[in-house]
């Protein structure tokens, strides 16, 4: 039995957006992908651009449902997950 796919909305900002080549995508990773870390590992397999964008993982920050998140943060179907560089506003 295969786990049901998990629809997620993934957003990219600043140089993550430029490297991935899109600001937003709808993805359906398998159910095992239930943390930010697992989602990153899965997203890296989607294309060479994803792989390149996430290669500097230490410099990539994440928010789940518009809240800053870390690699252990859980990801559930329907979540909005955003990846971006450290913020530089102000």
């Amino acid at each position: 039995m295969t786990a049901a796919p998990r629809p997620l909305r993934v957003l990219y900002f600043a140089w993550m957006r430029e490297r991935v080549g899109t600001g937003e995508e709808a993805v359906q990773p398998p159910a095992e992908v239930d943390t930010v870390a697992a989602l990153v590992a899965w997203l890296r397999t989607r294309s060479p651009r994803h792989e390149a964008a996430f290669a500097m993982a230490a410099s990539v920050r994440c928010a789940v449902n518009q809240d800053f998140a870390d690699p252990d943060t859980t990801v559930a179907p329907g979540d909005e997950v955003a990846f971006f560089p450290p913020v530089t506003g102000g």
Partner: protein
Amino acid sequence: MATVRVQQGAFDIGAEIAALGAGRADIGGIGCFVGTVRDQAHGRAITAMTLEHYPGMTEQAMARIAAAAEARWALLGCTLLHRVGELRPGEGIVLVLAAAAHRQAALDATGFLIDWLKTRAPFWKKERFADGQEGWVDAREADDTAAARWGALG
């Protein structure tokens, strides 16, 4: 009580200060910080600065930052405005106001608000240089250090 706004256009500092104090006379001091676009970075001339943000999360993050300041100091009001889009050297990027009965609270809250805004709100700056090249601004370790003065990034 806090005013939080993301906007493309310039802000009118005098009007924002007037709005903060309108109809009240319990304020003893208003602290203010205006961040402006500089015409150079690392010795290279800058012709424009583009601010990108995360719509939705930005407003939430700014409201949380304002609430954190209000929980920490007896503020009688605070204002956080941040511009997005393309700005020119000399233009204002960010405006922070904090009003209190006494000056030290107003000034401390102003420093706190700008430190946290720089490290906890999802804005990103891209510089365009005089030679046409563009580059995303790197996060400064000094900003994290400044923000950490106020306690753990909890």
